[in-house]
């Protein structure tokens, strides 16, 4: 591979020596021993007193003296001494009388006793770039000759190739090691995320962590505390790499332990913060939302330490409200006192969205960021979807917005949606799987609502009938659709209003289905097609709307 170029006029002794060195270079030695070998070979072939090798440190752009293990590191800039001249010109410098040469600098050309006579300074060059410098001094029989120059050059050519290769393999090895460590850190980080979301009655939760290529410091957690309370966490440790991933993993672990020990929110916050202050390097911190959702009081009590904006979608106003962090990030400093947690009420249909900055700060090719506007637009449009589907829409939105721009930061989203389950609400809503098997649950849902409202039993059968017809139509005509179907029930002024919403479908106006002539004799009657005819007979009013890929059918029915 690294064949020696025959150089004119080289003595066979010199050639043999060079060949020997080259052979050694091919063996997998570590760099220091190889450099020592090169130095020794150069000294021997050129019959010199001493040989030294300097290597260029690509990071600092300075030359570093090798072979000085155990001694303070010596380095030199490229403008000092004969060393510098060699490095800058990438040419051999042959100095017959060092003490008379003004370019000679005893400090870097290593003449501590002012007795160096002559010097041959040879650059190691690979692909026209400097790799290092070989300096040999004090030839036994007077100044270095032209043949010496060629011998040294030949030696240097071989060495440069080796050194360069060594640099590359070591940086490759470093990268591989780092890569393995990052993968490991990522696995640890992922393993702490909840594998399944709790399903507290009346609430719908969804959480997802989408890592960027490099490990970031995002995490989230949902931990049931008792029948009615859930602990909610979203955290983002500053920086990228293994450190933040482990910081956030450590925080999650500490929180789980503290919660298991029954600590209250303020105690948990204080202890974990103080521990992070102690553990984290000074410039690091963790932004975090720590909250407790009480599903019977419909409130979230929380601390948002540098974590914000928090999304509160209010169903009644159909608008997104953005809440600021309540305090500074965790791990900065110990708190002398801590305010009571902030309180947030969730009305039926409301959504609390914990979203890491990776989503808001996601940029497109024009350098614009997705922002709260991007999130709000999707939430206002799709808030009726089950939380897992809304979450998918948000990620899709970020992805579409960014286009070809790679995801720069982790994106983590935790959505907490309150369903319209409360008995005192005028309207309730629930999602049902697109399957005939959902019918029992649907009938129960209708029955429970009518019971809770003390609505006359006479409505039960016709309402179930109409809902079943509309629902089974949706199932039949879009069997492959993955979206659940929303059913909402409202009761105002004795009138029951029922609405079914089918997502991601083509329009089909049930109010325009062809009428059925029920007076025809049996032979002419079709077996199907009766459903929509009967629905129109039985409902007091029925309305069909289509927008944004969604069919909404609303009907009313009054008792009697």
């Amino acid at each position: 591979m690294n064949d020696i170029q025959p150089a004119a006029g080289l003595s066979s002794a010199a050639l043999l020596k060079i060949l020997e060195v080259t052979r050694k270079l091919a063996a997998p030695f570590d760099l220091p021993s190889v450099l020592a070998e090169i130095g020794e070979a150069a000294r021997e072939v050129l019959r010199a007193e001493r040989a030294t090798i300097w290597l260029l440190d690509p990071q600092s752009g300075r030359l570093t003296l090798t072979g000085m293990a155990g001694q303070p590191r010596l380095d030199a800039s490229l403008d000092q001494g004969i060393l510098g001249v060699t490095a800058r010109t990438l040419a051999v410098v042959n100095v017959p009388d060092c003490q008379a040469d003004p370019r000679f600098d005893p400090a870097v050309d290593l003449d501590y006793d002012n007795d160096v006579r002559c010097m041959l300074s040879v650059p190691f060059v690979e692909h026209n770039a400097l790799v290092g410098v070989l300096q040999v001094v004090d030839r036994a029989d007077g100044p270095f000759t032209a043949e010496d120059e060629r011998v040294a050059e030949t030696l240097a050519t071989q060495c440069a190739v080796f050194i360069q290769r060594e640099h590359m393999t070591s940086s490759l090895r470093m990268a591989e090691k780092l890569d393995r460590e990052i993968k490991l850190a990522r696995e640890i980080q992922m393993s702490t995320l909840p594998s399944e979301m709790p399903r507290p009655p009346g609430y719908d939760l969804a959480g997802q962590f989408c890592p960027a290529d490099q490990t970031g410091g995002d995490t989230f957690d949902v931990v049931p505390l008792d029948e009615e309370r859930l602990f909610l966490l979203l955290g983002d440790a500053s920086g990228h790499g293994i450190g933040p991933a482990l910081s956030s993993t450590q925080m999650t672990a500490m929180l789980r332990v503290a919660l298991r020990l029954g600590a209250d929110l303020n105690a948990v916050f204080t202890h974990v913060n103080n521990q992070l202050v102690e553990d984290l390097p000074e410039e690091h911190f963790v932004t975090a939302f720590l909250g407790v959702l009480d599903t019977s009081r419909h409130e979230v009590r929380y601390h948002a330490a540098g974590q914000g904006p928090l999304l509160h979608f209010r169903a009644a106003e159909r608008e997104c409200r953005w809440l600021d962090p309540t305090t500074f990030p965790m791990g900065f400093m110990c708190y002398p006192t801590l305010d009571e947690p902030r309180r947030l009420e969730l009305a039926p249909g409301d959504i609390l969205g914990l979203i890491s900055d990776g989503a808001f700060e996601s940029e497109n090719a024009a350098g614009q960021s997705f922002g709260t506007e991007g999130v709000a637009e999707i939430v206002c449009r799709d808030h009726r979807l089950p939380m897992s589907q809304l979450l998918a829409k948000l990620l899709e939105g970020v992805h579409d917005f960014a286009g070809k721009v790679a995801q720069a930061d982790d994106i983590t989203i935790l959505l907490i949606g309150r369903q319209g389950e409360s008995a005192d609400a005028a309207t309730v809503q629930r999602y049902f799987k697109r399957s005939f098997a959902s019918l029992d649950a649907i009938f129960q849902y209708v029955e429970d609502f009518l019971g809770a409202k003390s609505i006359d039993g006479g409505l039960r059968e016709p309402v179930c009938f109409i809902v079943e017809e509309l629902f089974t139509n949706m199932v039949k005509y879009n069997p492959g659709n993955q979206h659940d179907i929303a059913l909402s029930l409202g009761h105002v002024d004795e009138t029951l209003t029922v609405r079914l919403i089918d997502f991601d479908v083509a329009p089909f106006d049930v109010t325009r289905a062809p009428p059925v002539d029920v007076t025809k004799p049996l032979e002419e009657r079709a077996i199907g097609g009766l459903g929509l005819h009967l629905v129109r007979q039985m409902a007091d009013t029925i309305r069909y709307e289509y927008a944004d890929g969604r069919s909404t059918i609303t009907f009313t029915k009054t008792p009697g």
Partner: protein
Amino acid sequence: MFEIRMGEAGEIVMKGRLDAAQCEKALQFLDAVPEPGVVDLAGLEYVSSAGLGALLKTQKRVMASGRGLRLVNVNRHIHDIFRYAGFDRIFEVVRAAE
């Protein structure tokens, strides 16, 4: 729940809720009865259009051999549906005593 079986006097007895999910079960049973006649709906609380389809299909088969289904003990709500669907014209429907 939905239940369908033969009664003691050779009548077909349906009970519970005959919705779209149960319709296949009803149809399989009805298809297996060689000469269905009386269908007792006293225990039937609910019928959907899929259930109506099953009855209609059976009636077509039975009428071909010159007979017909007799739907008896039909509750008020189901009777309304039969009426909306024009079933009172093609079946013999007997309402339950109020």
